[in-house]
């Protein structure tokens, strides 16, 4: 069982409060992603759960037991670090076996568990190599192998894919999701990449300046953002925001329309504009349109929509998909 509960958890470095106060429930077997911009406190929160940092206040409950003052090793958690943090002087086998050795397991048990983990992670042929002889992806797999052999209550991932190139990142993302389906163990995953958050999570926790902005499933956050920050952070390309008269027509201070919810026409529509940059991805085209009296808006159209720089177009928001926000930035529902 790997449920984790944070009650009023806070963290300050000196006078600087990185995390003012956070309450959060993570159910057993959930894949939870902490996402937010750099410096929002997501890694700090993960390190507090891991026990690598001491909390300034509040309580961390792991599996029903108060773990606030337990050392990292006693919390039953495994962590995968951004830099992999492999032991450079040990072979792959030595690295994966290390946690088991620390638990005082028999050699036979260790050998079997290491072999099993290596098989799951396609590392069997590399067991006798040193970390420096491996590629980035293989190193990340060794780090994951070291985490899974302990059979922890929960896995903690601290931006594990940010050192990998784009193609490898997509592969590893899939592998981690598959691993979660196989193991059904609680996973907490920290990233600043909202695409990773959307594709992997059961539940996303959006953090900003040490506070939770919203907690929900990826589609909940996408369809029903609580505030401007979440609306702007989730979704790629970013949601367009319009204030003033066009927003007042919707009885709101600000309205938000996602690029994919703008209908484009060359003849008629709500807002007229000129195409600035057209980014052709093949299947889709992202158009950056300078709309008259509004500013730059991004629209996502089918790749077949023939348009180039300087063309005049009309943008019409899908009325069902307009997000409304009040002057404090909170969603109006």
């Amino acid at each position: 069982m790997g449920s984790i509960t944070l009650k009023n958890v806070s963290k300050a470095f000196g006078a600087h409060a990185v995390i003012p106060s956070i309450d959060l429930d993570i159910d057993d077997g959930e894949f939870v992603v902490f996402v937010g911009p750099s410096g929002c406190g997501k890694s700090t929160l993960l390190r507090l759960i891991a026990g690598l940092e001491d909390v300034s206040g509040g309580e961390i409950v792991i599996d029903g037991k108060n773990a606030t003052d337990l050392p990292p090793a006693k919390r039953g958690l495994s962590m995968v670090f951004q830099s992999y943090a492999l032991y450079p002087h040990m072979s792959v086998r030595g690295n994966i076996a290390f946690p088991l050795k620390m638990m005082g397991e028999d050699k036979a048990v260790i050998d079997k568990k290491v072999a099993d983990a290596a098989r799951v992670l396609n590392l069997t042929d590399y067991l006798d190599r040193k970390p420096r002889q491996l590629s980035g992806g293989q190193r990340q797999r060794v780090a994951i192998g070291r985490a899974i052999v302990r059979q922890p209550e929960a896995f903690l991932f601290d931006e594990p894919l940010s050192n990998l190139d784009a193609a490898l990142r997509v592969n590893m993302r899939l592998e981690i999701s598959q691993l979660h389906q196989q193991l059904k163990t609680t996973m907490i995953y920290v990233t600043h990449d909202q695409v990773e958050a959307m594709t992997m999570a059961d539940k996303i926790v959006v953090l900003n300046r040490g506070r939770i902005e919203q907690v929900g499933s990826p589609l909940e956050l996408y369809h029903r953002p609580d505030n401007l920050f979440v609306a702007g952070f989730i979704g790629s390309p970013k949601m367009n925001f319009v204030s003033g008269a066009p927003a007042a027509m919707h009885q709101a201070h600000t309205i938000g329309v996602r690029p994919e919810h703008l209908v484009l026409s060359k003849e008629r529509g709500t807002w007229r504009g000129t195409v600035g940059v057209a980014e052709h991805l093949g299947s889709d085209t992202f158009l950056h349109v300078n709309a008259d009296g509004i500013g730059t808006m991004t629209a996502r159209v089918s790749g077949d929509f023939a348009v180039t720089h300087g063309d005049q177009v009309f943008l019409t928001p899908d009325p069902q998909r307009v997000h409304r926000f009040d002057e404090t930035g909170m969603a109006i529902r």
Partner: protein
Amino acid sequence: MARNVSTQRKLITTAAAWTIGILIFFPILWTFLTSFKTEAQAIASPPTFLFFDWTVENYFEVQSRSDYFKHFMNSVVISFGSTLLGLLIAIPSAWAMAFAPAKRTKDVLMWMLSTKMMPPVGVLVPLYLMFRNTGLLDTRAGLVMVLTLINLPIIVWMLYTYFKEIPGEILEAARMDGASLAKEIIYVLTPMAIPGIASTLLLNIILAWNEAFWTLNLSAARAAPLTAFIASYSSPEGLFYAKLSAASTMAIAPILILGWFSQKQLVRGLTFGAVK
């Protein structure tokens, strides 16, 4: 892109490098050659370079007059002893400073280094009196203690710089993997730090071996190391260049050989952290 260097420039820099190298090495070579001359040849003017009657008599005379091996053993005990004792104190200190720094850690490090800038003679009298009153004068234990203290700032600094290069995440990973502090040190920290510890060890053995101020002032006969052995040949009886040279050659040979074999390790240790 590599710089385009002309052949002429290469020749000039090569010649300059060789000249400087030879200038630095020349005194050692001259000492070595003089040790095989007779006393008359040693002070002959103009001096002879290679064409003289080579003799090993000086070496026998030096050995018969003052026991080389006794001094050698003292040097070994003092340099190795002070270095090992220094490492024993410095390793935990450097770990603490590198991985659990406090608000004043940098100040403590600077203060330690500042003690190296103090002229030793400034504390000679108090230290001499303390040694006399505690019976440590002219004992190996006393010299081990004083050399440990003299070189401790350098040992701590070298290890600190080296430990700073070890990523903290690896130690955190060990903690997450269930390693206790002792196991973290034995299985993860020490194996990763061995090259750094080794170069620190080598450099400090060399420094302690060559240290002359304290060893000359705090030892007489029993604990006198090779520095005192050399110094005894520039005595009031008059200068005996050939014998002095033989004594010097014998005193520097062991450390020169050690330095030669470990130069790769030493350069690595001394330049560590300078380039990433």
